[in-house]
């Protein structure tokens, strides 16, 4: 060795592997406006499609007259349900086992429902055409309140289901009932409540909201009549699933469907499902023989393509008087709107809501969820959340605070007392999950120490006293939240989408010069996969991340994968990457042994190559092994160096975290100020701390929005009153608080690199932290639970109702 020989640290740093804050490769194009999003795609002869939508939430469609529309210059076709019936596409299956109208078939069931699809030479002409389509409606009584869905005199919404007493998930109790899903031990839980020293009961609502990525849902469909092939460019979080769904419903051979997800401008769950726009654009392309683009506008996005939450959770906890929980009983009324278009794994009508026991050692629990129809947009999707986990976390974290209040205990202390202990992992929850790992006490105590929690409580007590003395009009709340997520869907034993197991995949192909390409079943929408996936490979096989190109989103070249949502990419595809890389490494070891003329067992991997044990100067770099793979492999071995892995995870992963929100509220105006927000996340092994921190910032901002005002609200007649960014709360840089992040590391024991997923944790843990802060602020005035969202007006109203404002 001489002075020019790089040190171990230098060799490791050169890889830019796991644990390093590698700058993103995506940013070079995005900062220069050179991304390639769906609306940037312009194909020769491309047409534009746009929807005629219903102004009514519930009405019969008596007549659709397109004669005037077809006279508009540039308008080529108007597609209605009658057109779609000729190709058997007037209805489409949903991921939740329901069916959904693609275009209004006899009736409309929510405001802004798709009624007709106008195809024209450009988007302006399409809009002109829309204005000339005459639709005659006969308005019907709307059903808006989910609590009235199953009244005996409730209007019949879904006439297509008349006489069907069984749905996709079992018996239906009423014409507006979708499913009942029940889990846990009812008798044991009822018994726990009978002998409980203390119980609490509260109806905790998680309002309807919307993921609303900055880029709306859109697609370009191009049908090639000669080849019989359909190419779809779309904002798809799960392109392979879209290909299979299109093949099944359009009866096109799957090899003749090419689905391409280019750059995606945010997803947050909005871009998992299939929407009428995709079907109509595809049919329009088949009918016209030309490419057809469909681009949603923001109002359409907020009011028609999916929503999230709308869970109304009646929650009860049984406990001893010294604060040990003994039972949990939850009933959820789930408002799915007009069609159950919930984007959950097929067997899970309420997603993974049965994570609702949270981070606590409940000896018994029972959960029942009733899904109902209303005259609202269909859904709901998992908005930055692993399938109803955020609802579950909000439910239990609010309920624990309500219990603490009843017991006159500190909420943090109550949590510490009931946490699952480190030695209990793997832990079997009362509602059926096996938590893989966790160290909750350490995370909670770190949060309490870092934030000087005890001092904050003291300050709060002083402020409350001052408020009572009339010296201040400001009240202070501490929002504690400790969440356990369940992500990484999922093991084939319990997770599938339309029968396809929820594995994920990676194919790595190394080139002779020591570079390579990794192709994935996932699809980034901003998570930075092109950067982080290469980091995993860099560490696993010792090739610099800069030499690995990551490609996603082309179903012709990528191995089949289930896509990116539910924080599943790192837990599932991240594992597939490591496993594929290890196959590469195993073959590389054989090649190195042959070239170094030793037995494979005499080699050890050393950062970026293989070294003969005990003879450190005999070394072959991975770069040289790549070259050798193409010219001098051992006799009998096939040349080349590539591998594919389809990873079926043995279990979910269970990220967790401890959050604290410190908030001050002026009772006279309801104006709040988030003084401090601390978020400690444990997502196991950390691949790129910079990206993790960015994900946490973004998730917290969404949680802030949801908890403090972001709502899809309907008036009593079924009109959406939050249909644009004017009314739908989108925090800007001014409202958004400063985020403080921290971490502990408890690796997943079953994941090849110990990673757990993080993108959704801050949304899951953040919402209860904000809501608990507001509720904690008001609690000393006698309130027990104030429903979200906590905007200024509602805060003022709460203060007034509690007598704090004259």
């Amino acid at each position, binding site marked *: 060795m001489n002075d020019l020989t790089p040190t171990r640290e230098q060799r490791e740093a050169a890889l830019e592997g796991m644990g390093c804050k590698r700058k993103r490769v995506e940013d070079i194009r995005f*900062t*220069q406006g050179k991304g390639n999003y769906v609306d940037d795609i312009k194909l020769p002869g491309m047409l534009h499609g746009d929807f005629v939508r219903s102004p009514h939430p519930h009405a019969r469609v008596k007549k659709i007259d397109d004669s005037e529309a077809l006279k508009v210059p540039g308008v080529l076709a108007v597609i209605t349900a009658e057109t779609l019936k000729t190709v058997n596409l007037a209805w489409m299956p949903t991921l939740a086992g329901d069916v959904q109208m693609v275009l209004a078939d006899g009736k409309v069931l929510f405001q802004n429902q798709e009624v007709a699809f106008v195809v024209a030479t450009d988007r302006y002409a399409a809009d002109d055409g829309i204005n000339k389509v005459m639709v005659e409606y006969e308005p019907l009584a709307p059903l808006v309140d989910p609590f009235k869905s199953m009244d005996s005199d409730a209007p019949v919404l879904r006439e297509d289901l008349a006489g069907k007493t069984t749905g996709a998930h079992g018996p239906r109790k009423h014409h507006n009932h979708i499913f009942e899903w029940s889990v846990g031990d009812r008798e044991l839980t009822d018994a726990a409540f009978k002998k409980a020293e203390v119980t609490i009961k509260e109806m905790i609502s998680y309002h309807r909201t919307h993921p609303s990525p*900055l*880029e709306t849902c859109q697609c370009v469909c191009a049908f090639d009549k000669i080849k019989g092939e359909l190419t779809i460019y779309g904002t798809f979080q799960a392109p392979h699933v879209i290909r299979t769904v299109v093949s099944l419903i359009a009866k096109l051979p799957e090899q003749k469907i090419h689905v391409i997800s280019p750059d995606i*401008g*945010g997803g947050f769950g909005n871009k998992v499902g299939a929407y009428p726009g995709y079907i109509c654009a595809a049919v329009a392309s088949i009918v016209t023989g030309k490419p057809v683009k469909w681009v949603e506008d923001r109002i359409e996005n907020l009011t028609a393509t999916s929503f999230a939450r709308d869970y109304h959770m009646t929650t009860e906890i049984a406990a001893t008087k010294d604060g040990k929980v003994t039972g949990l009983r939850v009933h959820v009324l789930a408002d799915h709107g007009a069609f159950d278009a919930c984007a959950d794994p097929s067997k899970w009508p309420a997603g993974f809501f049965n994570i609702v026991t949270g981070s606590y050692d409940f000896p018994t629990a029972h959960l029942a969820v009733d899904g109902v129809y209303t005259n609202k947009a269909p859904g709901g999707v998992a908005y930055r959340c692993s399938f109803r986990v955020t609802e579950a976390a909000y439910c239990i974290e609010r309920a624990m605070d309500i219990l603490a209040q009843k017991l006159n205990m500190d909420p943090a202390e109550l949590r510490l007392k009931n946490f699952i202990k480190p030695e209990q992992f793997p832990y079997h929850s009362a509602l059926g999950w096996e938590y893989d790992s966790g160290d909750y006490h350490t995370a909670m105590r770190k949060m309490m120490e870092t934030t000087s929690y005890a001092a904050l409580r003291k300050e709060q007590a002083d402020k409350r006293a001052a408020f009572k003395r009339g010296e201040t009009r400001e009240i202070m709340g501490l929002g504690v939240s400790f969440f356990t997520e369940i992500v990484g869907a999922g093991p084939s034993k319990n997770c599938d989408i339309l029968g396809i197991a929820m594995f994920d995949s990676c194919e790595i192909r190394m080139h002779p010069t020591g570079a390579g390409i990794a192709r994935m079943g996932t699809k980034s929408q901003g998570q930075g996969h092109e950067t982080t996936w290469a980091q995993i490979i860099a560490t696993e096989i010792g090739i610099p991340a800069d030499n690995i190109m990551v490609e996603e989103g082309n179903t012709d070249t990528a191995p089949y994968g289930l896509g990116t949502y539910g924080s599943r990419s790192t837990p599932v595809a991240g594992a597939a990457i490591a496993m594929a890389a290890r196959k590469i490494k195993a073959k590389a070891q054989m090649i190195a042994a042959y070239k170094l003329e030793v037995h494979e067992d005499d080699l050890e991997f050393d950062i970026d190559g293989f070294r003969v044990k005990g003879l450190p100067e005999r070394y072959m770099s991975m770069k040289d092994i790549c070259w050798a793979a193409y010219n001098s492999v051992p006799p009998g071995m096939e040349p080349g160096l590539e591998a594919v892995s389809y990873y079926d995870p043995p279990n979910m992963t269970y990220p967790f975290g401890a959050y604290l929100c410190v908030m001050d509220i002026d009772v006279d105006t309801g104006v709040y100020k988030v003084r401090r927000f601390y978020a400690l996340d444990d997502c196991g092994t950390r691949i790129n701390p910079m990206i993790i921190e960015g994900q946490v910032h973004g998730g917290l*901002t969404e949680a802030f929005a949801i908890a403090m005002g972001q709502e899809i609200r309907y008036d009593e007649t079924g009109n959406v009153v939050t249909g644009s960014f004017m009314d739908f709360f*989108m925090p*800007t840089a001014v409202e958004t608080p400063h*985020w403080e992040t921290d971490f502990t590391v408890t690796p997943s024991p079953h994941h090849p690199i110990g990673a757990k997923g993080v993108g959704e944790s801050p949304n899951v843990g953040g919402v209860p932290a904000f809501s608990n802060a507001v509720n904690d602020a008001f609690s000393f005035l006698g309130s027990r639970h104030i429903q979200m969202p906590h905007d200024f007006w509602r805060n003022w109203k709460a203060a007034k109702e509690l007598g704090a404002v004259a």
Partner: protein
Amino acid sequence: MAKTHVTMKVNGAEVEGLVEPRTLLVHFIRENLQLTGTHIGCETTHCGACTVDIDGMSVKSCTMFAVQAQGSDITTVEGMANADGTLSALQEGFRMMHGLQCGFCTPGMIVRAHRLLKENPSPSEQEIRMGISGNICRCTGYQNIVKAIQYASAKINGVEFREAAE
């Protein structure tokens, strides 16, 4: 519909085109000029993804007709890089500080920040937050965007960039 002839300067080049009076500037830029870096996020002037610089002002191009831009001097995100093709201080700042994720708001954000730094080369954090409040980002929570602009400000002013302590 009768078309109107428009001419303007975009990223230093004289351009022209025939547009309907109702054609939005953003559609002229994206579709006629094929400069697709300028994005459309809301069509109601709230999100700022369509921000371009017109005659020294940040303008949301989804709420302006192409005919209104007759004769103006426009810079889009495609005109933001240094003359030699390297990333500008702002573009570099966004990358170094992880000021973007999905990249959809980024062009508007960079174009807006460009004007902000022209008007105020050393803005405080509050001035930056207020200065970009017409631009919505759904991914980053803004904290790293603020840092990206601070990074660019330091670089432009020739001083060392120091991240504020958490």
